[in-house]
């Protein structure tokens, strides 16, 4: 499929983002252009300090930009007021973090239910849907476990279930395998690959882990605040 035939989930144009002021001002993103297509899993790689996490935060609408245009799922996200951006994020995005960020006092099912509770769903229905999602990631028998009683791989699967429970169209993953050993990292990526294959969903994964590169559809390399390359990793139709 040609690029012009694809619908973009995220369109980033000329984005500049700096931190600090005066002598301490550091420009982290120096004019980024990037598209993330619907139905693809995009890997964002590059050296530490290159701006990957900042770009991820910008795409998620968590950080304001200094210049440029940002469209996420057809919405000019940077132009939305903070409150509407938060609501938009809650309704359309899912997040997976390096450190899982599960709430330690909540069971696996309750953790997965959190995004639904934020959306205002009742607890009973939220937990029921959370349990169904846990079943989908193979953890239905761990629904009542607290995070401290789960392995790292299981915790990340809970985090994935949490990210997916409100059917987000954009999945944002920050180093999802960094805290896991090799086999667990592979399993997590297989799961992400599987859930990310939906034609109306995109997955953006920031990673350093070269062992998971083969799970991506494309890979964008970010160096010193600039996209230096975007490579196709998987041909259409390949598994």
């Amino acid at each position: 499929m040609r690029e012009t035939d694809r619908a973009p989930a995220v369109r980033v144009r000329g984005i500049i983002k700096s931190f600090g002021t005066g002598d301490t001002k550091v420009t982290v993103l120096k004019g980024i252009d990037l598209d993330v297509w619907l139905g693809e899993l995009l890997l964002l790689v590059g050296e530490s300090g290159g701006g990957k996490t900042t770009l991820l935060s910008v795409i998620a609408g968590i950080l304001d930009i200094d210049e440029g245009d940002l469209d996420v799922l057809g919405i000019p996200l940077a132009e939305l007021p903070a409150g509407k951006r938060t609501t938009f994020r809650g309704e359309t995005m899912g997040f997976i973090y390096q450190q899982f960020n599960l709430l330690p006092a909540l069971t696996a099912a309750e953790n997965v239910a959190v995004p639904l509770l934020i959306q205002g769903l009742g607890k009973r229905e939220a937990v029921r849907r959370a349990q169904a999602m846990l079943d989908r990631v193979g953890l239905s028998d761990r629904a009542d476990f607290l995070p401290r009683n789960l392995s790292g791989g299981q915790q990340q699967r809970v985090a994935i279930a949490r990210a997916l429970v409100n059917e987000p169209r954009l999945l944002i993953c920050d180093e999802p395998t960094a805290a896991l050993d090799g086999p667990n990292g592979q399993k997590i990526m297989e799961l992400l690959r599987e859930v990310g294959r939906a034609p109306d969903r995109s997955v953006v994964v920031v990673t350093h882990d070269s062992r998971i590169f083969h799970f991506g559809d494309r890979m964008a390399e970010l160096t010193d605040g600039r996209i230096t390359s975007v490579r196709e990793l998987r041909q259409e139709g390949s598994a």
Partner: protein
Amino acid sequence: MNYVALKMLFGDRAKYLMLLCGLSFAVMLIVQQGSIFWGLMVWSQSGITNLRAPIWVTDPNIAQVEEVKPIADTAVDRVRSVPGVEWAVPLYKGLLRARLASGDYHQIALVGLESATLIGRPADVLEGKIEDLRTPDAVVVDQWGVERMGGPDVIKTGATFELNDKLARIVAIAKTKKSFQNIPVVYTTYERAVRYVPRERRTLSYVLAKAKDGVPTEQVTALIREQTGLGAYTAEEFGLKTLWWVLKNTGIGVNFGTTILLGFIVGTAIAGQTFYLFTVENLRQFGALKAMGASTAVLARMILLQAFTVGLTGYGVGLGLATLFGTMTASGGRLPFVETFTLLTLVFGALLGICMFSALISIVKLARLEPAVVFR
């Protein structure tokens, strides 16, 4: 999200218990000290409340009820002549030493009541009959006198002692509120009281009076002041005057006020710091919630719910402990401990203030929190 907030609060058991202990301690300290303080204030007015007279007339420069500035005997008739006065009777108050049969001396407060009506007599009698005061040499001793002057084997109906070398025979034991000075009170008739004390030119301490039915007491006291030139107060006014005198002249207000303030500061510091730490340690989790779409308002509601939940629990525990202390140590009025609805309301208000402060510093932190923290 209320459920999540409460699970987060109770899930960190160590911090929850620390918060609960801090707030319970603060509430207990404030309620306990406040109740003792108010108990002492009640005691300071027992010289007025025990006599249950609506109007007190005496020297216009009187500062408080235990102070005696004798006035002319004619004052009784002058007060009686004021329009709106239903009745007016003389009252003697003074300090004397009682000499017991054993030879022991005890300082007592002597109260002389008008013999015809016995107005100002104690409301409750534990033993004997108050009307027997009209028999020769009769006196009534309050229960604190029994306690202070040798116990029930020594101070009982039928027992005698001497007041200024004159015989006093106990005909009844009265139940009264303890006085601030904790001096036993001995009641007798006005005429006998005057005979007990050394001869003075003026012996009348107070005139007790009452307004006619339908006439406001405040109006009559104002009229007495105007027409007699004497100091006239309603019982409430005189009680308040006495209370202010005690506060100004004993340092008791500063003393208790400091402890109460300390309780408030300690409670605020412990709760504020612990709550802030609780928030800071959960910053990544809160950041994750923000990233997932929880607005600052939602997080603020969670924080407020957590603060007020632990606050209300702490209020209950602290109040319970203070009440237990009061019940155990102040039973029978031995120690001043008066828990009032006003005090409990004020403490509740103070606690809400502590909770609000604790929550606010956390909310400010969360409002400034960039959800990007979860990616670091």
